[in-house]
């Protein structure tokens, strides 16, 4: 059977280097399958992260041959030609814990800074509202929100965004996409504060629409357009003197 060479970055926050492994090249295998095989058969100390293996949990993202990907849904034959090696690195733009496992805390801290949690309008203390909110599914705001809510928080867009690398304070595509879904949630009562939180150089105004986030999102979401939506809203608010 043909062999597949896999170069895996091994190390921690202090630094590291690539180690080469060989596994059988099978017709059907995902990148995560290969990493698991190496960890089980050859390198028990190899650190990596996964949970669901079916593209729902968002925990297995890595850099595969120069591109951030969800590894559980990435077939080896789609990213490496026969005979070509796989090169795996931890997800860029986040601190490395060890080997292929990154610390996702800074990524989710940005969601919090972008006010990515729902703030009920009717019950600010978190109590259950008296009545159901009526949200027509076909309304423009609901469709804008629907376009972005399937995010699984894998960090691929954040890892693919140059602005994140150039400005570590930049909230990044995932957090801003999340904010845009809430800006379009008519039940939310924290719009002014959220729009202020996503404004400026650390927010949507640093986005240069390279659209790497949209290009790389494994769920086919379009954070780039969500960020454009935030810019649009803030532009008219500023021009017309509206605050939230």
């Amino acid at each position: 059977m043909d062999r597949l060479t896999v170069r895996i970055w091994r190390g921690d926050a202090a630094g590291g280097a690539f180690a080469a492994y060989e596994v059988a090249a099978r017709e059907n295998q995902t990148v995560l399958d290969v990493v698991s095989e190496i960890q089980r058969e050859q390198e028990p100390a190899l650190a990596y992260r996964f949970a669901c293996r079916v593209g729902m949990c968002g925990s297995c993202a890595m850099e595969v041959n120069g591109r951030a990907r969800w590894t559980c849904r990435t077939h080896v034959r789609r990213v490496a030609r026969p005979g070509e090696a796989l090169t795996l690195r931890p997800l860029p733009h986040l601190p490395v814990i060890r080997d292929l496992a990154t610390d996702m805390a800074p990524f989710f801290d940005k969601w919090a800074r972008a006010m990515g949690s729902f703030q009920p309008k009717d019950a600010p203390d978190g109590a259950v509202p008296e009545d159901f909110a009526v949200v027509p599914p076909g309304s423009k705001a609901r469709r804008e929100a629907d376009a972005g809510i399937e995010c699984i928080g894998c960090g691929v867009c954040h890892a693919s965004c140059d602005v994140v690398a150039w400005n570590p304070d930049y909230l990044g595509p995932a957090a801003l996409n999340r904010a845009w879904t809430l800006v379009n949630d008519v039940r939310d009562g924290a719009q002014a504060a959220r729009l202020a939180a996503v404004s400026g150089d650390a927010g949507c105004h640093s986005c240069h629409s390279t659209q790497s986030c949209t290009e790389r999102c494994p769920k086919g979401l379009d954070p780039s357009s969500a960020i454009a939506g935030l810019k649009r809203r803030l532009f008219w608010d500023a021009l017309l003197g509206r605050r939230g």
Partner: protein
Amino acid sequence: MPDRRHPTYLAFLAHRLSGLALALFLPLHFWALGQALQGEAALEGFLRWTDHGLFKLAEWGLVVLLALHLAGGLRVMALEFLGWRARQKDMAALGAGFALAVGLLFLLNVG
């Protein structure tokens, strides 16, 4: 080097680098036109000094960069203000084509 090979990333790079070049050229351009303050003869003298082929090449380059930056800016604003998320790649290609067409028109008319 991370893999950034996709059309809208190239469009971003083209937009940024053309903008950088144009921004640096701007004071030079204003200085040159400012020759008119010393009268027609001074401006004419400067223009004849730039008749050299290298200047013509630079002028052509600047015209192409200006057209490229214009087209790239329109694409970004279409995304930001009109929400045109579809066909961004086609628009990027169209922008490059527009810049080349303007460059060609310049070459056909110069001389």
